[in-house]
Structure formats: C-alpha cells, structure tokens
C-alpha cells in the first residue's frame, strides 16, 4: 500500500513541476498567446503599402524601361536596352551630372562651414543661445518655393531696385540680371539653398556640440590648451567627426536631389539643370516619354542606392546613430 501510494504521488508531482516550467516559459517572449496574430496585424498596413507603393512601381517601371511608351502607360514596342543607352548617352543627361558636380562643389562645403561655424559661435554664447538658434532655424519653416519667390522677385531681381543690385550700386556696380547671366545664377541658386537649410544643420551641430563631455575641455584647460582655435582643433573637431561625416553625406544626397528651386528659378535654362529636373522634363515634360523616363529613374535610383550603401557602410544611417552605441550594436545584429 505504502509503495503504491508513494508511486502515484511522485508521478503526480512530476507533471506539476513540468507545467510550472512550461508556465515560466509562457512569460518569456515567444510563447505569449496571440503573438502571431498581433505581429501580423501590426505589420500588415506597412507591408501592404510597401508592396503596393514601392515594390510594384519599381517592378513595373523596370518592365516599362525595356519598351517604348510615350504619353501612355501601355508598352507599345519592345526596344531592349535602347532606353538605357539613350538616357546614358544623352548629352543633356551627362550635362546634368556636370551641373550636379558644380553645384555640389559650392553648396556642400559652404553649408558645412557656415552651419558648423554658426553652431560653434552660438554654443559659445553665455546667454540667449535658444533665441539665436530659433532665429537661425526660422528659414527652415519656408519651402523652397517661397525661398525661390523671395530670391527671384525680391533679393536678386534683375531690376535696379532689387536688394542685391541696390547693395552693389553703393559700390558703383551696374545692375546684374542675376538669373539670366552666367555665372551669377549660381550665386542665386547657392544662396537660396544656404538660407533654407543652414538652420537645420546648425541645430544638428549644436546637438553634437552639446554632447561633447565638458570634462574634456576642463582637462585641456589643465594641460594649458585654452585658446579658442586650439580647443576647436584638438577637442571639438575630433569629437564632432561623426556628425560632420553624416552631415556631409546628407548634404551630398540633398544636392543630388535638388529640384524645387531649380524648377522655380531657372525652369528653361539647360546650363542649370540637375539630374532630377532633367528626368522630370523627359518623363513629364512635353514628350511624356515613360519608357525613357523609367530607365532614367532606375539609373538615378541605382546611383543613389550605391551612395546610400557606402554611407551605411562607413557612417551609419544618420548623425543620430553615430552617437548611440546601443543602436549601433542593434543594427549590426540586424545585419547578421
């Protein structure tokens, strides 16, 4: 009896232990009931959108790029790689790449220097930092269209009453027809973008500057490094390098995608036609050549993806990433 009674007891206790272990597992991720349903409910809206408005358009466009399709969405005649060849050998396209290079050579270093300089300046102010930051950030509120409007009709109007011409007149310079004369149109195109985007990068740099541990400056002080320039050279600049690298690439990508101010300020000037404006004219201009445009869109997209891959390879996704080791770790996990 006693042997019999103990045997069932052990068998009953064992399953209890097992269910307890199983119960503990339930709390851990992986076992909560409804997790599969929840996952798909949360992810589906994004997934559907991704397929419908990213995947399908790109697949369709790649298909269309092998056909002739002018003014219609229907592919009319198979032309193989003709569209690609036509796009790549078009003088206007190679010129547009040249335009981008010239434009980037000016806008990227200038924006970089001005926004970094202003950020260091504002960061060094004992008071009213927030006020000046707000003023410098204010142009970010304006669209490129508004900027183009003020630049074309106000600041750089070709009339003697334009602000720039009035200013130059005090030095005896004759009125300049800014948007109609080379190379002066570059002054207009570069300065409008400078005004519109500097505030954004000042805020980015200020965030970067404020993350530099104050201890470093104090240590430098003890070591006798107190002068402004040396402080910048030996502490600020090295500490800020990740932000600088990220901003450099953001500026480069933004310059490659320049469109708004060019279309509004110099719509018909072939000498100032960046790649996107050229593509816009091909695809949605008078010809509405969707086949050629598709080939062009894929070529430009491929170019940008290569740049973006280099960017992620070397610098991470954004300035925000570089400061956050934790997220960096997560990303490398995700990559694996």
């Amino acid at each position, binding site marked *: 009896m006693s042997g019999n009674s103990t045997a069932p007891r052990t068998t009953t206790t064992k399953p209890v232990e097992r269910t307890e272990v199983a119960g503990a597992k339930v*709390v851990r991720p*992986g076992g*909560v009931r*409804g*997790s599969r349903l*929840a*996952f798909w409910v*949360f992810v589906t*809206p*994004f*997934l559907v959108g*991704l397929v*419908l*408005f*990213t995947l399908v358009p*790109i697949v*369709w*466009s790649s298909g*269309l790029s092998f056909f002739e399709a002018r003014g219609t*969405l229907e592919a009319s005649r198979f032309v193989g790689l003709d569209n690609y060849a036509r796009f790549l050998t078009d003088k206007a396209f190679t010129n547009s790449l040249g335009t981008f290079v010239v434009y980037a050579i000016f806008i990227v270093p200038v924006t970089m220097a001005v926004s970094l300089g202003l950020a260091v300046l504002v960061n060094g102010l*004992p008071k*009213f930092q927030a*006020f000046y930051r*707000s*003023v410098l*950030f204010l142009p*970010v*509120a*304006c669209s*490129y*269209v508004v900027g*183009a*409007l*003020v630049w074309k*009709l*106000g*600041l750089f109007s070709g009339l*003697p*009453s*334009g602000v720039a011409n009035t200013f130059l007149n005090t030095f005896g310079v004759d009125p300049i027809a800014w948007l109609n004369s080379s190379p002066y149109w570059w002054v207009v195109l570069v300065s409008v973008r400078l005004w519109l985007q500097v*505030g*954004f990068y000042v805020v980015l740099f200020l965030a970067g500057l404020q993350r530099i541990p104050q201890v470093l400056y104090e240590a430098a002080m003890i070591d006798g490094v107190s002068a402004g320039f040396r402080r910048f050279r030996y502490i600020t600049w090295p500490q800020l390098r990740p932000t600088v690298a*990220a901003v450099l690439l*953001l500026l480069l*990508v933004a310059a490659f*995608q320049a*469109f*708004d101010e060019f*279309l*509004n300020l110099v719509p018909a000037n072939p000498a100032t036609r960046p790649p996107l404006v050229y*593509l816009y004219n091909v695809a*949605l201009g008078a010809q509405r050549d969707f086949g050629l445009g*598709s080939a*062009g*869109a894929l070529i*430009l997209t491929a170019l*940008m993806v290569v740049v973006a891959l280099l960017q992620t390879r070397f610098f991470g996704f*954004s300035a925000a*990433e570089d400061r956050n080791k*934790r997220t960096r770790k997560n990303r490398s996990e995700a990559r694996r």
Partner: protein
Amino acid sequence: MTTLQTAPRPVGEARRTAIRTGGNVARYSAVTIVSLLFLLPFYIMVKTAVSPAADIASRTFVLWPSEPDWSSFSRVLEDPTFLRSMVNSALMAVVLTGGQIVIAAMAGYAMARIPNRAAKPLFSATIVVLLIPAATTFLPNFLIVASLGWVDSLRGLIIPGLFSAFNVFLFRQFFLNFPKELEEAGRLDGLGYFGVFRRIVVPNTLAFASALTVLGFVGAWNAFLWPIVVAGGGSGAVTVQVYLSSFLTAQTFDYSGLFAAALLSLVPVLLVFLLLQRWLVRGVAETGMGGT
C-alpha cells in the same frame, strides 16, 4: 521673434562678466549680424506684400512703403483657388503625417518587440527600401498612381506617401530600448499585445512620436516635387506650394498679392515653430533627417 526668448533671467554677475569681455561682444555682434541677414528675406516678404503698385514699380529700393497697403491679404483670402490650395496642403500634411506615424509605430513595435520569425527578414526589407530615395522614384510612383486613376486627386497626393520605411526604422530602434518591465507589468495585469500597446506603449511613446510628427508636418507642408507630379497641371489637388509656383513661373504682375499669399502659406508652419519648437529641435537632433 521676442516670444521665442526663454525668459532671460538677469543673473547679475554672469551678465556683467559677459558684457565686460571683448570676446563676447565680438561673438554677439557676429551672430546678430548673421541673424539680421537671415531675417532679411522675411522683411522683404512683408514689405513687398504691403507695397502699392507705385512702390513696386519704383526704380530705386524702397525701404518701407510710405502708405502700406494691406489689401493684398484680403485680395488673396478672397481667391477661392488659394483657399482651396491651403485646405489641400493642410489635409495632406495632417493626414500624411498622422498616418505615417501610426503605421510606422505599429510596424516598428512589432519588429522590435513581438517575437516572430518574419521580423528579421521584414526589417531587412525595410532597410533596403530605406536606401531607395523617394525623389528619384517619382516616375514609378506616378505610373501606379496614374493606373489607379488617382492623378490630380488628394488620394494620389497622400496615400503613396503613408508608408515611411525611415520612420519604421526609427520606431524599431526606439522600441528596442523601450523598458521591458513596463510591458511585463501590463501583461501581468492580463493585457494582451493590443492592450499593452494601447495602454502602456503608446502613452510612453508620445514624446518621441511628437518629435517625428512635427518634423514630418513641416516636410509635408513644404513638399513640392510629388505634389507637382501628382497635380499634373490639373486643379484637383493643387497644394499651396504648387499654387505659388504656378505664379512664379508664369510671370505674374500682382507682386504684392503673390507675396501676401507666400506669407499666408507660412502661417501654419510658423505656428508649429512657435508652439512646438522644442519637439522640432528634438526631432532634428534625433533623426538627423527631414526637409526634403
């Protein structure tokens, strides 16, 4: 502008030393001059908007019209096309930004916190999409919108932009660092995934989401490339940027009206700037993206 100032407290000592040092005088002069340059275009906008025709036609620069004429504002506000474009822009900016945030927050949360074998491949797909710039794919997107019959419509303007891989990426990173204890506490109280998300995760994500929303709103309001592509020369879904642009390229002669319209187009964004500046700055610093 002065409203942006965060209540300057006159800390006597600090202030006196600040004024005494020559370095600070130079700093303040430099930054003030640059600030005035940055404000110059705003002054030009207001000045031109209130200039009577005679002042606009003047051969010399007029500092401020002797008789400011504010009627340009009422003239623009009576233009139904302008009002329609403002409504379109507002609808687009609000729905687009709101939708983007909700969709991205859900997807980002699932990828970060709901265990599923599909999470990793989905995240990889998101990263791949992230690399494809929206600007260069305007034609492929236009093709699909055209085939759906959405050209020159609000649907075409808004729906294709609702799915932001970048926001999903940001939300996933955010949720990876979200304290697990909070979720577990909710689960012990008997909440399922949806309950935990609604009652615990969302309330604790509002600050982060606000930063992204404010930044997104400004970007959407100021967008130009996609709105002009979708508008396709029609009048069904013209945003205020496309409206302004149409006058700019068509050589208008009503300068004061055009500048008044430009100023009015700034009002919503300026309101956001004044009221939500903190979120905006945080959004810029946290994402390092935005604008175009």
